């Protein structure tokens, strides 16, 4: 989808930004053409967010200039950038959950009649225009909190477009949506592009970048590495530029030996959420769980651990029947669940690294009833070392760490409970390539040491690369199980969308 029009939409020249103690951006320059989808890639902490924040008016550069649509611009705040035509869809969605779709899209700019009353008819028409354009499966009057994350993402994009933007910044737009929804999103992106708008696309996922982007700018440690046409490079080359080293073998080797069953689950059932869930987990294997959002994977694991109640469950752990009705009991037994949402459910962001690591097993660091600070510091030091967490001090607050390091702190918290079965939900969501590969290696190492590992992931390459066996779920039931060479993209997708059972039903 090459564009003959070579007009430059955005030109960033020698942008430098310093924060106390660090040089976040060092003379970065690049250009975005009209009608181009331009990826910006780099590891966490490379300076992508700072760069986007400067372009969108959230931060001011120390040096350098920005030329937008032919004129030099200097935005003092995001509002000015918006008015000039730069829209920003943040990774964390910022909608008002209690309001309607239409009210969200036209937030702050509701059409009104001569007096102050909102013109509801006009509002609906204006909203429907966008919803139709995106072939959205929801209505203008739906309340946002009832919609899925993907639908909310579409609302965010519509909100930016409703501002009549010329340049749209999408920050990790696919981090919380499924593959199918991603396809819808890409359709929308192509449509926007056809209308002559430009898109800055930030993502960690290489395959997406090569699917939807025309150019890619690579940033490392605050410096521009290169800007290239995606048609002219391979993803390996881009990854190498990002990390500045070769990442050999993105995924660790598969299991070297699978032995006894460590966990057996039968007939897990929770009304309207999932039913007939039976599977077993063996020592030495990594068991993958794949499914579209809403398939019930997370819910199954939470019920299995006793976090949520369920209607029926039979769990055998190391050959003994266990009840697992309270999560604390499950943790003490050694069955733990690591959440997919580290910021809002996994970490105590305002607390220190060491406080976070000791959170799930305070027993580790107590002497009598007191907290033993030496033990706490030793425990923290141990997992910081083992997981290669980069921190300035054990007292550092977790919210100042990069995504990858935060993820590792959360994992450290759970390793400190000495788990026998580790269930990890989206182990590498939103983290950089380097940390990703380290976490994959760590999971494999744990599994080789005899810990049962279950990985839930919505990223097909991760499931395929990591798991020795894959269970696929669809709308609350297990629709398939794959192992060895059968773990292939096509097979997984067929089970995940349940083509097999529906065609069988048609035959009957």
């Amino acid at each position, binding site marked *: 989808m090459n564009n003959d029009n070579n007009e430059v939409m955005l030109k960033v020249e020698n942008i430098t930004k310093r924060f106390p103690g660090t040089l976040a951006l060092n003379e970065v320059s690049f250009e975005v053409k009209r009608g181009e989808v331009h990826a910006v890639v780099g590891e966490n902490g490379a300076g992508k967010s700072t760069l986007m924040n400067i372009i969108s008016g959230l931060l001011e550069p120390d040096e350098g200039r920005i030329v937008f649509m032919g004129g030099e611009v200097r935005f003092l705040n995001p509002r000015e950038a918006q008015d000039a035509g730069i829209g920003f869809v943040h990774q964390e969605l910022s909608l008002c959950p209690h309001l309607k779709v239409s009210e969200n899209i036209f937030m702050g700019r509701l059409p009104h009649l001569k007096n102050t009353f909102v013109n509801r008819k006009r509002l609906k028409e204006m909203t429907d225009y966008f919803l139709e354009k995106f072939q959205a499966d929801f209505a203008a009057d739906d309340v946002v909190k009832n919609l899925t994350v993907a639908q909310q993402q579409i609302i965010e994009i519509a909100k930016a477009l409703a501002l009549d933007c010329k340049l749209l910044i999408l920050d990790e737009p696919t981090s919380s949506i499924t593959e199918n929804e991603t396809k819808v999103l890409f359709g929308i992106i192509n449509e926007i592009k056809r209308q002559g708008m430009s898109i800055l696309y930030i993502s960690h996922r290489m395959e997406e970048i090569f699917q939807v982007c025309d150019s890619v700018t690579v940033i490392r440690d605050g410096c521009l590495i290169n800007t290239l046409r995606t048609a002219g490079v391979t993803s390996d080359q881009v990854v190498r530029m990002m990390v500045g080293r070769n990442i050999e073998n993105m995924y660790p080797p598969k299991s070297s030996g699978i032995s006894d069953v460590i966990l057996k689950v039968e007939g897990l059932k929770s009304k309207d959420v999932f039913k007939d869930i039976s599977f077993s987990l063996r020592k030495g294997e990594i068991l993958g769980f794949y499914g579209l959002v809403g398939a019930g994977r997370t819910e199954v694991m939470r019920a299995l651990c006793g976090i949520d109640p369920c209607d029926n469950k039979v769990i055998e752990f190391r050959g003994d029947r266990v009840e697992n009705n309270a999560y604390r009991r499950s943790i003490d037994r050694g069955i733990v669940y690591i959440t997919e949402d580290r910021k809002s459910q996994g970490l*105590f962001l305002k*607390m220190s690294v060491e406080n976070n690591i000791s959170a799930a097993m305070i027993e580790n660091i*107590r002497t009598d*009833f007191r907290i033993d600070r030496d033990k706490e510091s030793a425990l923290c030091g141990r997992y910081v070392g083992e997981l290669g967490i980069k921190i300035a001090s054990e007292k550092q607050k977790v919210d100042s760490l990069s995504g990858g390091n935060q993820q590792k702190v959360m994992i450290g918290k759970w390793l400190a409970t000495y788990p026998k079965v580790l269930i990890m939900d989206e182990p590498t969501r939103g983290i950089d390539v380097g940390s990703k590969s380290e976490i994959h290696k760590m999971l494999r190492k744990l599994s080789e040491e005899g810990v049962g590992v279950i990985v839930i992931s919505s990223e097909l390459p991760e499931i395929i690369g990591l798991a020795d066996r894959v269970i696929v779920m669809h709308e609350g039931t297990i629709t398939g199980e794959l192992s060895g060479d059968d773990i292939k993209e096509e097979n997984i997708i067929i089970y995940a969308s349940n083509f097999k059972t529906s065609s069988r039903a048609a035959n009957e």
Partner: protein
Amino acid sequence: MDENVSTSVRQRSSQLLRRIFAFREASVLVSIIAVMLILSILSPYFMTKANLTTTALGFAADGIIAIGMTIVLIIGGIDLGVGSVMALSMVTVGGLTTIYHLNIWLAVVTAVALSLLCGLFNGFLIGRVKLTPLIATLGMMSMARGGAYVITKGSPFSMSGVPPAFRFLGSGSIFGIPTFVVIFIVMIIIADYLLRRSAPLRNLYYTGSNEKAAELSGINVARVKLFVYVTCALLSGIAGILTVSRFNVTAPNSGMGSELRVISACVIGGASLTGGEGTVLGSILGIILLNFINNGLVLMRVSVYWQDLVSGAILIAVVTLDLVSHRKKAS
């Protein structure tokens, strides 16, 4: 060269100062010392033992309640019922002894049990039923106060024939320091140490910092809440009993407005209404600061009607200063 040395010393000492001031307790402490200095210059009576002990006696009840409020604020909750529970506990003691001529100690035990019940009720509604703390304790505030009015039918009990052992708690003294104040200080020390160092109490900070993460770390959040609200109500009840012992009178309108005074003091001392932060020491320093300033106003013959106005202004000033200084540090 000398200049260099002196600048580096100055730099180092300013760094040290900055580090100390990073703790809210330190800045409140410095404010207290400043207020004390100013007041001792303005009024010769301020630094007398009589004035200081009277002032300390005056805030001991609020101070004991502040211990409870601190832990409630740490978990991200709020307890508006403290003043009413205090009053309920007071009139229970007064009513049982004057109307039913019950033994004073039995009356005290009953009052403690009743406070405990109030705390259990709050803790159950907030922890299990998941009512917002504001609503649950707003209800308790009204109910406990109403209970106090029902028991007294609106007029205060004056108690007579109280045994000296009970009188000693609120009116006696140990080595020249009022017993009430001694009890208060002992409670602060124990509570502050426990909150800083005890392993189970660490769960309060986890819960306040991120309730969902705490739950997913195997912490029984409902139990934490129950503990916190029960403790807070118990401390309010105890503060009430000690106040009865001090004044020998129990009025249903005692402790009016103490919930807001105590919350202000805790916030001045570094507790956050969004949870996760706060120390007993900080809250007590907040109480001391507010009361010293009020005491100063009295000594300087400023009308008592100014007290609330000044307290409010201090609350806003302290929190604003803290916010602004943190914002500077962040950018």
